């Protein structure tokens, strides 16, 4: 608990934590929504914000606030699937490449370099165009995004494992007959997990950004399923700006911005906490 209190002293962490709690509250609220997330014309169209409809209603006859609760839930689901899967791949590839070295290492790293060098947006467009029906599912979109997000962190983990491999405790473990699998899992995992955790947050940010971008192009998730991307796409596509339905357009934009900022600040303060040098610098500056 004291660690948490120390974190709250960091203003960025406090703000980020508050924002994320707020968004999580929205996610929980979505369970109690009085409206169906995908059905249209359930409420009067194009009403400005009022007590009854806190964020107004859109041109499709949906309540924007309750729509938002579903959107945040679905967007966070995609982000979590994408980032957890890509973390799993990154840890696996990084550890195997770092521990085995040699040919395996070279093949895996070249594979990673290719996904780094490819213009991600173009490739994602190509894939989601060809697999239009497959990508419409939340889980599948998450998996697709994960496939292009592991390479950089696998590289970081690999170099970490490579240096751990030469440490004495590795030799002790190997000499005392510890199996490779157990060695990696028990001895190396604690070193690798912090990296994986901070990159997890950055990765969520990437996945959300890509989800929104793909939705804007009319690709990715099924447009009738509310996510931040599809909400924004619907508002832009139906000219919310020119119809002066600002509550419809700005709700997803502002929410997305807050979400991006919260995730970024959270990852900053976490990586600062995990890197003691940066922590000393910060305390010294006070």
């Amino acid at each position, binding site marked *: 608990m004291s660690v948490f209190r120390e974190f709250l002293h960091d203003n*960025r962490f406090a703000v980020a934590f508050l924002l994320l709690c707020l968004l999580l509250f929205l996610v929980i609220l979505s369970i109690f929504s009085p409206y169906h997330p995908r059905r249209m014309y359930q409420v009067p169209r194009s009403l400005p914000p009022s007590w009854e409809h806190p964020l107004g209603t859109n041109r499709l006859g949906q309540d924007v606030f309750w729509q938002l609760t579903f959107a945040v839930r679905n967007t966070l689901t995609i982000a979590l699937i994408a980032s957890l899967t890509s973390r799993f791949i990154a840890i696996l590839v990084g550890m195997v490449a770092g521990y085995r070295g040699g040919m395996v290492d070279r093949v895996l790293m070249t594979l990673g370099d290719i996904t780094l*060098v490819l213009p991600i947006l173009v490739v994602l467009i190509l894939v989601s165009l060809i697999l239009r029906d497959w990508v419409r599912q939340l889980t599948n979109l998450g998996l697709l995004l994960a496939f292009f997000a592991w390479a950089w962190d696998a590289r970081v983990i690999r170099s970490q494992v490579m240096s751990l491999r030469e440490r004495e405790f590795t030799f002790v473990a190997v000499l005392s007959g510890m199996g490779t699998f157990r060695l990696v899992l028990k001895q190396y995992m604690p070193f690798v997990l912090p990296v994986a955790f901070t990159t997890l947050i950055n990765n969520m940010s990437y996945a959300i950004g890509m989800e929104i*971008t793909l939705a804007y192009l009319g690709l990715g998730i099924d447009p009738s399923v509310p996510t931040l991307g599809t909400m924004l796409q619907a508002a832009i596509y139906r000219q919310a700006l020119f119809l002066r339905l600002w509550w419809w357009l700005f709700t997803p934009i502002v929410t997305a911005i807050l979400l*991006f900022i919260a995730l970024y600040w959270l990852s900053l303060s976490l990586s600062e906490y995990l890197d003691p040098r940066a922590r000393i610098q910060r305390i010294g500056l006070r």
Partner: protein
Amino acid sequence: MNIVRGYLIPRLIQYVLVTFLGLSFAFLLPRLMPLDPVEQQIAQYQSFGVYIPPEQLEQIITTLRQLYGLEGTLLQQYAGFWGRLFAGDFGPSLAQYPASVIHLIRRALPWTVGLLLLTTVLAWLIGTLAGGMAGYYQRSRSMKVLDGVAMVVRPLPYYIMALLLLILLTFIVPIFPMSGGIGIGRIPSFTLESIKSILMHGILPALTLVIVGGVISFQSMKLIVQGVRSEDYVVYAKAAGVKEGTIAYRYVIRNAMLPTITQLGLSFGQIFSGALITEIVFSYPGIGWLLYNATMNGDYNLIMGITCISVVAITTSILALDLLYPLVDPRVRYR
């Protein structure tokens, strides 16, 4: 000759290998998928309620297969893919039929290259200089404000930034034109009017790219300088009475600026994707806009062509950056 064998050749081999694998990946990707693009195309026609008699359907399928290069075994297709690639032939565009893909790309490329080149250089220059100052003069109030702004802008993706600028500067405060690369009906030429129109249309996309790219450079440069400023040679220079400004610019910032070029090269794929999405938001007539139209029309050939061109463009510019870098930085002269 040691330079050639020790650095140049391995780097060139790596370039060829990565480009080759990247293009093969682009070839293989659509073919790994469980769905057949030809069948999908047919399903699309049929979903419009078009009735196609069976023998015509057969004919359409073979024609489409030819167009997509999907005839024969996988190996034959692969050989054909490389053959056409070297000839620079990606077939005709399916949506703008008689025009060839390469012609469309050639028309759009100058817009993207111009935008990308200008903004990448500007973003890097502004970002690193400001970041260097923010890192060196940590306690100054104006630098703290700048840092605060960077903290908010940094996590925003290109798309959101472009949208915000679009709404703010063309709709709420209508200063700039909303879309296009040049006024409607104009043909780019070297007259004053034409250049002015190009500039006015280009400012917002360029601003988006400079802000997002600049903030990334700013943050990484700030971190580097914070590390460098506590190094011995800086303390020594201070003790020897070298002026603070001289230390900051000539010793610290210049020193830390060059390594960020390598970082720039590594993130070039992302910058390119960002430029594409920015073009789409502003309907700027470059590769991104072309790609957008291609996806809207399901123009498979055009998308394939753009993918291949982008892969080659990105790997080549990273190579160029890597090879030019030692000319700029005396510390890593080819050994």
